């Protein structure tokens, strides 16, 4: 089965009408994945023995629908690696909260999606399991770090996938693969069971072809959780209520800085077209400034790497995962296991973070970054005092060629400039397809106030209905 022309509603209808059984749907899905995987490498683990929930309750639209999960989300009894050699054999003994919630909703987990090691990267090339390929052009990257999730959805392997977003890791690959991807407000979705990269920035997100499908899944995975002290107890609205609305009277901010030199002209044009559509349909467009945008990349890399350097210390070869074979003493176990099993990008971030926190550097780096973060947040507060959403491009360019940037970390980091701020400020943000530039998809980014994902769904769904990008099919898979 291929989901290129399906969505949750259409699959649900098939199940309900008895056109297909849930078992068959699962089997067909697994078969479809196996057919595409040699080309895509979107999955680290395919759950061969996946079975739909028993006593399927078909009054629930998600029941029996297969879903892929980024491999940094803990799944009880299904190997979870975070695309790292250091967890190559790690078998979890509990479920992430989002997984428990998906299981309660009777969704079927069919695969663990490929990604950058520990979600560190913007191309998914930092995977111990090799880079996934972009279904629009197999010589190009999927983006990252949730590249496998994005490619799996865009190629029709699955209709939906969970990703995680620390600095754009859901939105950037969504943009590169021509699908919808949302990073909810920090604290909207429990992080219990999300393998930590940067704890104050990480958030689990949803990736689907259509915004409406993400709204349905976010409805299920959002909300309070006793395991996570940073997750909000705010009531979760029905996000699907935002689908099908117009944008009349909506205040839309367009930051000048998001159309800077680094952004490709063709990308700017495509994004401006979408903004024009909003304006033509009654939205009020306001040009605004986000003056600290030039500092978001350094700020992000200090904060995220500092937290990561600490979060990744538990991978020490002692209790689980990779242990170096020839370790003679304890220090050997630590140094050899970590040096042999972490990839270069992970090492760079650990090194940067350790440096930023170390004696003599803390004030100049970590503390200063925490203060600049405040200034970044204040930029957004000012804009949201008068606007409902902020829009712009998700990325400066469409997907680049595999191997073109991986050797130049700074060039790679600069790709994140448009997505990072939302994580720094903890606000929700999504990417919705805007169109194609040279045959490759470009994403339109929508950000909103904290806990106002509904406005994002409203705008994204409206854009989708206008540009009908969902009717296009990826070109890279045609033989």
């Amino acid at each position, binding site marked *: 089965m291929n989901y290129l022309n399906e969505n949750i509603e259409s699959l649900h209808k098939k199940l309900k009408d008895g056109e297909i059984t849930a078992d068959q749907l699962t089997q067909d899905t697994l078969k479809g994945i196996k057919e595409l995987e040699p080309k895509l490498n979107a999955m680290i683990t395919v759950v061969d023995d996946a079975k739909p929930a028993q006593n399927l309750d078909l009054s629930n639209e998600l029941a029996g629908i297969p879903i892929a999960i980024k491999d940094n989300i803990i799944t009880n009894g299904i190997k979870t690696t975070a695309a790292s050699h250091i967890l190559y*054999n*790690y*078998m979890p003994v509990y479920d992430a909260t989002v997984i428990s919630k998906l299981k309660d909703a009777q969704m079927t987990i069919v695969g663990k999606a490929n990604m950058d090691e520990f979600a560190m990267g913007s191309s998914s090339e930092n995977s111990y399991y090799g880079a996934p390929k972009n279904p629009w052009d197999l010589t190009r990257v999927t983006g990252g770090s949730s590249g496998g999730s994005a490619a799996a959805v865009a190629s029709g392997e699955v209709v939906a996938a969970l990703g995680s977003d620390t600095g754009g890791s859901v939105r950037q690959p969504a943009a590169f693969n021509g699908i919808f991807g949302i990073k909810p407000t*920090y*604290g909207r979705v429990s992080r219990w069971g999300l393998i930590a990269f940067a704890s*104050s920035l990480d958030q689990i997100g949803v990736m689907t072809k259509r915004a409406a499908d993400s709204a349905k899944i976010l409805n299920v995975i959002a909300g309070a959780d006793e395991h996570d*002290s*940073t997750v*909000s*107890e*705010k009531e979760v609205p029905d996000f699907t209520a935002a689908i099908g609305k117009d944008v009349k009277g909506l205040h839309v901010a367009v930051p000048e800085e998001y159309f800077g030199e680094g952004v490709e002209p063709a990308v700017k044009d495509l994004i401006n077209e979408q903004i024009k559509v909003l304006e033509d349909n009654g939205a009020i467009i306001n040009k605004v400034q986000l003056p600290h945008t*030039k*500092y978001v*990349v*350094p*700020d992000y890399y200090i904060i995220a790497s500092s937290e990561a*350097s600490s979060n990744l*210390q538990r991978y020490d*070869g*002692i*209790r*689980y*995962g990779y*242990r170096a074979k020839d*370790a003679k*003493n*304890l*220090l*050997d*176990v630590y*140094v*050899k296991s*970590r*040096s042999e099993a972490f990839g270069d990008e992970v*090492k*760079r971030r*650990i*090194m*940067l973070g*350790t*440096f930023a926190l170390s004696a003599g550097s803390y004030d*100049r*780096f970590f*503390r*200063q*970054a*925490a*203060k*600049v*973060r*405040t*200034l970044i*947040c204040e930029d957004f507060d000012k804009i949201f005092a008068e606007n409902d959403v902020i829009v712009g491009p998700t990325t400066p360019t469409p997907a680049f060629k595999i191997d073109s940037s991986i050797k130049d*970390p*700074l060039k790679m*980091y600069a790709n994140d400039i448009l997505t990072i701020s939302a994580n720094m*400020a*903890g606000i929700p943000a999504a990417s919705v397809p805007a169109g194609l530039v040279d045959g490759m998809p470009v994403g339109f980014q929508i950000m909103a106030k*904290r*806990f106002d994902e509904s406005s994002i769904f409203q705008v994204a769904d409206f854009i989708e209905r206008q540009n009908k990008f969902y009717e296009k099919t990826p070109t890279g898979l045609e033989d």
Partner: protein
Amino acid sequence: MVKITKEDIKHVAGLSRLEFSEDELEKFTEQMGDIINMADQLAEVDTKDVPETVQVVDRDTVFREDKPEHWETREELMENVPEKADGYIKVPVIIDKDDNA
């Protein structure tokens, strides 16, 4: 400009429990120097009297009641342990504790 030397990188690698071959060290010293100087752009921002933001949460004082719960079972928790004996995690002999300097 922050000058990053091989010695700096070795020191930070030690704290991180990582080691690099001479070749890698060469490459990492250069890369880390570039990255750290990119990060150091923040030094030019005036942050006098600006408070720090270390998390963006809408809650505080989040507590759990003091109710014990037993995990079933120890064997399950130990399934992933590379080396174990009699319910213990086994590690090669510990040489020194605080070589964190």
